């Protein structure tokens, strides 16, 4: 307990800030300066937020062997102390509500407060998954309306609303493909995954029991169409392709790829994580896609990690629609919305491959996503993708003279701008730039991904940053690039102003300490 600063501030902060290695930041920001102990190290024994009656001495003989020998190691804090602990921790966090969050491939956009207001309406917020359907017709209507929008925006025949996240949606799509192959009496084993696809794609294919074969990228950062065609054959179940891809580029050959895959009897899975760049402009169904998940927390502005499971609906082509998992929300002949479950699967879902989740999905995410769609309208969504792409290209062109842009000559980027450490002097790494960005008061970009680019820095500003905000970010990045060229040693020790300095990530991974075990083992 000694040495713990219960006030929450790090007493040595001024020394750190004035230390000889500390540089001045471009933005003038000093990151966040809070310090906080573990909740177990705060408070004192016997203190609680509520009065609990002493337990009765009489314990039934049947339970007596379970009586505790020692008090449980619970933290002893009053209610305000507990509130303050978590509030202080929250102030150490950095989120989209504090500043730009340019994490490539993640679409960290603003979560409109109107969404929150809608999601908190009691008819949506307080429903129970087991209450009678006729008491939740409004909620079911929301799910169905959202499903209808997602089908229209993607040009697809059907949508499974129950998957809980992007990777869960990928699995759903691949299980649909497997079910379709089973129905044809075929046991195809291979799924082709381009190097420019999302990292979860090969993992999903392997998890679904397929063998993964990689397709190389062209020097321009796109799928090597010829290499893909060479791998096609009777054992290919399908291809998993990310469009726009993780190099931030549109795959103009997707239609040709899809036609070639269909010609050999395979299916096309598209990773929809980057849908924000094309929503309202390109319908994946028109490009021959058979299945695509949609991350509602990316394109449709629901919070990342928004208080429970997320939602990763999967849109499906005519070919895969019959195999969508239950439960399924459907509109009956008289316009009423109801659920198709095992007992009524005869309503067109006889071939459903099964069930991935207990209930129908995350109501809070559905409500937020529909609120986002309705408040933007079709024209607004079109502007979303336009502004997201414009912002990313503004960053690409504003930094390509100071940072190597490996695909800068491949034409405009889509929603994210990709740089590499190739132009940085020896000894200065992508990690140094990312850590320097923390000192500048920004969350770092995605680093060392995609793997096809050495020392990658992937920046996705999204449409919700203003030009002034982007200019401020660009100024900080240019300053970091200049410091790198000058071999500024202080970059190696950044961040200087964050609550923690450069962490030993290697040791944290090799010898992780994951559980607090009390003072005796500290």
């Amino acid at each position: 307990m000694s040495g713990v600063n219960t006030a929450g501030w790090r007493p040595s902060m001024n020394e750190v800030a004035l230390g000889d290695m500390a540089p001045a930041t471009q933005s003038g920001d000093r990151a966040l300066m809070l310090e906080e102990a573990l909740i177990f190290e705060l408070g004192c024994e016997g203190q609680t937020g509520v009065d609990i009656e002493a337990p009765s001495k009489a314990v039934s003989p049947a339970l007596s062997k379970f009586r505790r020998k020692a008090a449980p190691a619970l933290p002893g804090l009053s209610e305000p102390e507990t509130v303050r602990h978590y509030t202080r921790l929250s102030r150490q966090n950095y989120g989209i509500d504090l500043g730009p969050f340019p994490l490539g491939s993640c679409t960290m956009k603003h979560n409109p407060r109107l969404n929150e207001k809608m999601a908190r309406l009691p008819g949506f917020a307080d429903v129970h998954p087991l209450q009678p359907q006729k008491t939740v017709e409004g909620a079911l209507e929301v799910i169905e309306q959202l499903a209808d929008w997602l089908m229209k925006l993607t040009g697809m025949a059907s949508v499974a609303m129950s998957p809980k996240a992007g990777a869960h949606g990928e699995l759903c799509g691949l299980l649909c493909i497997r079910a379709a192959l089973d129905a044809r009496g075929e046991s195809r084993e291979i799924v082709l995954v381009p190097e420019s696809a999302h990292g979860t794609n090969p993992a999903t294919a392997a998890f679904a029991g397929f063998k993964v074969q990689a397709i190389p990228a062209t020097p321009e950062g796109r799928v090597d169409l010829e290499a893909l065609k060479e791998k096609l054959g009777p054992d290919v179940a399908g291809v998993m392709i990310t469009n726009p891809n993780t190099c931030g580029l549109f795959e103009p050959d997707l239609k040709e790829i899809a036609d070639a895959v269909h010609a050999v009897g395979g299916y096309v899975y598209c990773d929809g994580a980057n849908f924000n760049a094309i929503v309202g402009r390109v319908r994946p169904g028109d490009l021959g896609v058979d299945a695509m998940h949609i991350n509602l927390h990316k394109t449709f502005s629901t919070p990342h990690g928004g208080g429970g499971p997320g939602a990763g609906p999967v849109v499906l082509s005519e070919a895969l629609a019959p195999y969508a998992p239950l439960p399924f929300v459907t509109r009956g002949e008289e316009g009423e919305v109801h659920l198709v479950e095992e007992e009524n699967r005869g309503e067109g879902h006889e071939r459903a491959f099964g069930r991935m989740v207990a209930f129908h999905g995350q109501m809070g995410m559905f409500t937020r996503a529909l609120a986002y769609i309705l408040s933007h309208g079709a024209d607004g969504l079109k502007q979303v993708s336009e502004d997201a792409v414009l912002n990313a290209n503004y960053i690409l062109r504003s930094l390509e003279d100071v940072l190597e842009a490996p695909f800068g000559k491949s034409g405009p980027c889509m929603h994210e701008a990709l740089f590499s450490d190739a132009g940085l002097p020896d000894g200065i790494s992508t990690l140094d730039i990312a850590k320097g960005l923390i000192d500048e008061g920004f969350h770092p970009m995605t680093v060392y991904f995609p793997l096809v680019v050495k020392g990658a820095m992937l920046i996705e500003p999204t449409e919700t940053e203003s030009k002034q905000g982007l200019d401020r970010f660009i100024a900080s990045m240019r300053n970091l690039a200049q410091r790198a060229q000058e071999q500024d040693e202080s970059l190696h020790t950044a961040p200087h102003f964050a609550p923690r300095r450069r962490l030993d990530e290697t040791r944290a991974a090799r010898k992780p300490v994951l559980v607090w075990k009390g003072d005796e083992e500290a």
Partner: protein
Amino acid sequence: MSVYYSEDHEWIEVEGDLGTVGITDYAQGQLGDITFVDLPEEGATVAKGDSIAVVDSVKAASDVYTPVSGEIAETNDALADEPELVNSDPEVGGWLFRVKLADASELEELMDEAAYKKFVAGL
């Protein structure tokens, strides 16, 4: 006894019908600090080009492809506690697995040291 190299930066040292496989010094340098190595099961049958091991570093998780077909005879247990051996001694103590060769002619498709050095220099 001779050593061969693959374009995926694996080396294989062959003695009789037993090949010892690891990743090259160039590969470990590119990956950075190795934090975990996921090895195949002993006795598993593998085909040339299969992804059969994973090397995690602070930057990325990378697949290791077996440069030859055969049966896994032994894996390097020391890496469970000391994955850093792949960084410090990649081509000796940091070996990953030993494979009983099914088809020695597969070695002909690999590079010798001089060819691999040339290959790396061109990257």
